[in-house]
């Protein structure tokens, strides 16, 4: 354990994680932890998949599904349900875990054990038609957020025709950094802002990690300013603070504009030694990391704190500790 403690001291993400984990355990935290555990086990069993995103967004997803999302687990195709789109489809275990934990038929533990296997409803990426709770196929980044714009528009159009007593629901999206880098997110964001699709909320998993490394290797835009310019209401929250998440979702429910909520998260949250240590948790299960192409020394680089990321307990991103698993 001494080695791990030494590592923790060097890794601000682990320090932040330790602080969050030290908070009193609530029922919601336990549900989020269950999501994390299911994501780890499924990816480990399949020997492929992406545990980091479900672990990072488990708290946000728990608050959304337990307090805000309108759905009927016994009738997942109920016409007036809220639509939930996992645009970050690589984190498919997040959706499968939610369907499982909310008791939906057809996503039992046996199905989760067959994650990514032939004929399993728990496919590598969410596949429309594999389970009634999967609203759309996603995985090609950006498609989910744009598809959700169409769902939100359809809701408004049908509400205008048939009235609020029949059509009165919302569209919720969980999107990743990659979703927002793809060009289609610009088209979709611009369109939703123009049309004032106020029933649309995007929860951005603002973990600042991409496959090639920290997102700073390829992007430096202010995403919230971009969406504000499209006519969206924007908010930034600590993606592990349930009360803050709930407050932001309440704001989204009241907003007269589409809403973009940047959820600052630690990718792979909850893992004892891995969170934010490097990018590979996003990409492959822990025991099957792709071979390093560069030495730890060249991968490590200093990163200055970003003024645009003011979340309290989360640290500025730090360099990989030399010699840390990467």
């Amino acid at each position, binding site marked *: 354990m001494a080695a791990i403690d030494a590592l923790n001291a060097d890794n601000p993400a682990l320090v932040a994680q330790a602080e969050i984990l030290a908070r009193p355990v609530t029922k919601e935290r336990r549900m989020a932890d269950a999501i994390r555990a299911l994501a780890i086990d499924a990816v480990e069993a399949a020997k492929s998949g992406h545990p980091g995103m479900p672990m990072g967004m488990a708290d946000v997803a728990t608050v959304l599904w337990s307090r805000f999302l309108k759905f009927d687990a016994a009738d997942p195709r109920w016409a007036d349900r809220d639509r939930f789109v996992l645009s970050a489809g690589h984190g498919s275990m997040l959706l499968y875990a939610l369907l499982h934990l909310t008791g939906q038929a057809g996503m039992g533990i046996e199905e989760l054990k067959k994650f990514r296997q032939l004929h399993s409803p728990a496919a590598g990426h969410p596949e429309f038609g594999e389970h009634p709770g999967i609203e759309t196929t996603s995985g090609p980044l950006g498609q989910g957020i744009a598809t959700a714009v169409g769902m939100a528009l359809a809701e408004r*159009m049908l509400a205008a025709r048939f009235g609020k007593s029949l059509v009165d629901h919302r569209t919720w999206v969980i999107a990743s950094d990659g979703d927002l880098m793809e060009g289609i997110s610009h088209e979709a964001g611009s369109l939703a802002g123009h049309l004032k699709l106020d029933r649309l909320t995007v929860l951005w998993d603002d973990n600042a990690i991409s496959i090639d490394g920290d997102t700073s290797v390829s992007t430096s835009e202010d995403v919230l300013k971009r969406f504000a310019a499209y006519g969206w209401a924007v908010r930034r929250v600590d993606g592990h603070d349930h009360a803050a998440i709930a407050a932001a979702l309440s704001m989204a429910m009241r907003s007269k504009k589409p809403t973009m909520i940047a959820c600052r998260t630690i990718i792979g949250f909850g893992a004892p030694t891995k969170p934010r240590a490097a990018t590979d948790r996003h990409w492959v299960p822990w025991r099957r990391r792709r071979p390093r192409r560069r030495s730890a020394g060249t991968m490590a680089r200093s990163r200055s704190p970003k003024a645009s990321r003011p979340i309290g307990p989360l640290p500025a991103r730090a360099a990989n500790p030399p010699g840390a698993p990467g």
Partner: protein
Amino acid sequence: MAGRLPENFHEAVAGLRGDIATSRPKLASRQSSQKALEALVPAIPELVGGSADLTGSNLTLVKGMGAVTPGSYGGRYIHWGVREHGMAAAMNGMALHGGIIPYSGTFFVFTDYMRPAIRLAALMRQRVIHVLTHDSIGLGEDGPTHQPVEHLASLRAMPNVFMFRPGDALETAECWELAIRRNDGPSLLALSRQALPAMRGDAGENRSARGGYVLAEADGARSATLIATGSEVAIAMAAREALQADGIPTAVVSLPCWELFALQDESYRADVLGNVLRVGVEAASGFGWERWLGPDGIFIGMSGFGASAPFEELYRYFGITADAIAAAVKRRLG
């Protein structure tokens, strides 16, 4: 929400086909598409249209639809702006949501911008319809940046897409009917900018439903079969006339939807395509045509990018003319 078509749908399309068969209008197929929409939009409340800033060119708007505007969603027409990719993906969302059958409009060449969303519609088996006008060098002066060449072949290669290319007003109405009836995948309609003469006067049966059919049988034992789609069907008909005048009995097959044709039984396909010389005619890449022409067929079409000029001149320049077809047939038959 259930996705079933209204009961009066059949009457609406039968009436439309009857009108066209009687009046036999010479129209660009994009105009024929508008004519079809004028009948379909009032009959199908779920139908919601739009265009990526090309409404006047795609002819996708029907009087009385009303536009969706910010904060006001009672209309049935969406001005998507120049956002083809976002449009196609959002249409997937509308179809997935239920209660709406979305159709779009843009130039055929811009399917390149829409491809990832079309692919997902095909994968998810969603009923979305894309009206894709200016479908070949027939668009003329805008030149090669706007002239699709490889797009038919590439979209025919995509699983579960119905790629329609109707040849006249009646086929356009038939293809529209098939696109709307299809509830398990996307339909693409490639339509011409230039006017196309009416080829048929029979409206009893939707002949496009079999994907391809003998439009004009040879007078006498067939010596050659000309197989064409869209705007080249009329050119093939003119070539047939010239060949028959020279004593070469020639049939013309119209092939508006390869995917539907491929679903027919083999004997039907063999009868339609015939066992004599087959000549494919399409103002596009020949990639894939060997499927219908066999190893000994002739393809008359494009072998590279187009050019900027009036469309009649382009057809002559690239050798897609009745004379060129007739000459190729005669050369081969000796």
